[in-house]
């Protein structure tokens, strides 16, 4: 799968340009993280990936095909979007119904629905909660319920909008294992997150947005080495990275092990 944005501009009907000419190619199966402060245009950008929003000018191509050729409902078989706020997505009276709703709409065979349901419920940790009402779930469980509902559709691309918000240690672990499992199945995951520890733990490619533009795009080590540009975009590297940078270590590190290796290198000099 490949998503390509060509000079994408977007203005909300109420006025104000939110995206100011974005050029981007995202493809393959390597998970990609999009970071940047509130209002940078992250959500607006990803909502173009399956046509929830349509460009004011410029082009969005999915595998070379212009987004305008199909409806959002049609694209959602290929590109699944998990909303930032679970309450914007959940509307049925049980987790199971949430999971089965999408597949039934696209007439997925019942056998296939059942098979996928088991795999998805296990992956998102909902096996024991399939008969619960989504409104009785904790905020973190609601998030996993919405992720599960989108995974049920078996799209080639998954977009997670702030999945880390309100998650604890275990929740973040589960998210990482979901992203890993999807990569193994040949899926492309694109994730928006404010949690830098989470971002560096599983995303090699990082895209930084600021004021409706992409200001950095590259390997995590390269991106977080650009301290001045990051400061301007109000993005701070993870704590361990900041300590290394503050103490003058030359390498950009994201783990304590890498930190110690970098420290040993400096000691030898």
């Amino acid at each position, binding site marked *: 799968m490949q998503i390509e944005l060509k000079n994408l501009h977007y203005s909300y009907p109420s006025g104000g340009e939110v995206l100011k000419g974005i050029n981007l190619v995202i493809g393959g199966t390597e998970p990609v993280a999009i970071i*940047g*402060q*509130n*209002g940078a245009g992250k959500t607006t950008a990803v909502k173009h990936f399956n046509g929830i929003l349509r460009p004011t000018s410029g082009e969005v191509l999915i595998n070379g095909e212009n987004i305008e050729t199909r409806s959002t409902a049609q694209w959602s078989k290929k590109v699944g979007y998990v909303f*930032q*706020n679970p309450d914007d997505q959940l509307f049925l009276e049980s987790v199971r119904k949430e999971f089965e709703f999408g597949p039934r709409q696209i007439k997925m065979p019942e056998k296939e629905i059942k098979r996928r349901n088991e795999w998805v419920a296990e992956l998102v940790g909902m096996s024991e909660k399939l008969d619960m009402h989504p409104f*009785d779930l*904790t*905020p*973190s469980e609601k998030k996993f319920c919405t992720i599960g509902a989108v995974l049920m559709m078996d799209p080639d691309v998954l977009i997670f909008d702030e999945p880390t*918000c*309100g*998650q*604890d*240690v*275990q*929740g973040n672990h589960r998210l990482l294992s979901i992203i890993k499992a999807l990569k193994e199945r040949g899926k492309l995951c694109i994730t928006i997150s*404010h949690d*830098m*520890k989470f971002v560096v733990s599983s995303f090699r490619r990082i895209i930084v947005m600021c004021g409706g533009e992409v200001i950095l795009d590259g390997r995590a080590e390269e991106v977080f080495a650009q301290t001045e540009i990051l400061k301007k975009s*109000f*993005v*701070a590297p*993870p*704590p*361990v990275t*900041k*300590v*290394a940078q*503050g*103490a*003058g*270590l030359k390498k950009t590190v994201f783990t*304590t092990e890498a*930190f*110690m290796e970098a*420290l040993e290198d*400096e*000691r030898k000099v």
Partner: protein
Amino acid sequence: MGRIILEVKDFSFKYRQTKQKALKNISFQVEEGNFFCVIGANGSGKSTLCSALAGLIPHYFTGKMSGRVIVDGISAGESTIAELSQKIGFVFQNPFNQLSYTAGTVAEELAYGLGNRGVSRRMMMEKVEFVSKLMRIDHILDKNPLELSGGQVQRVAFGSAFIMEPEILVLDECTTQLDPAGSEEIFDIVKELNKKGVTVIMADHDMERVARCADKILVLEKGRAAALDEPKKIFGDPEIMQHGVGIPDYVEITRALKEKQYTDRDIEIAEGPAIEMVREVLDRCKLN
């Protein structure tokens, strides 16, 4: 030891619709002017505890309760939410739960609590102006609260708690909708209020922030108090992660350096001292 402003005595609570108790035999005291943090995995009871401190338990959420919560000498169970709100300001996890849903504008939303307290119109306008500038929402005062972004609603929620000038602020994972820079900005304001004497009780998942702010930390695990101590003691305990909580990166770095015997410093829990410690290690080997 300062004056005890908040006391929880052998407190247990079970929600009506659940089988398990959400909190089991919790006891602790908070000194006036302290910054008291509550950490623990999701489902460990943090939000339940915050609700009990603000009187939402037992007055709003019903269930089976035992033990006592005493706020500035008043038993929370026996007084009304109105009485408690004179002392305690509560900022909810979901900021949309905080809105009155009767205010047509952000300005009215901010003034809502003051109106219930019978504050004069002039005073109200002064306070709204001050708080909206503090929270950087003075440009959206005329907007409908339901038209705002999550981050903006969170700022309004904070503003409507601050405007009542509470002695105690209870913050329940209150910056989930804000980006890191936005949360830091709000926590700087909270720290400023704390310096001026406001007692703060905060439940949060950001361990770096907790380590930096807290005078004391309560660790909850499955409704029980697993630990209660100063930040350096809590994060210095090698077993602490078994309770389902993370630790600040700085602690991991200190441990790795101590293991190699590169430093004899105590556990470091903040960025500045951690950088200093690493510089010392580097300087020392340059001298050799």
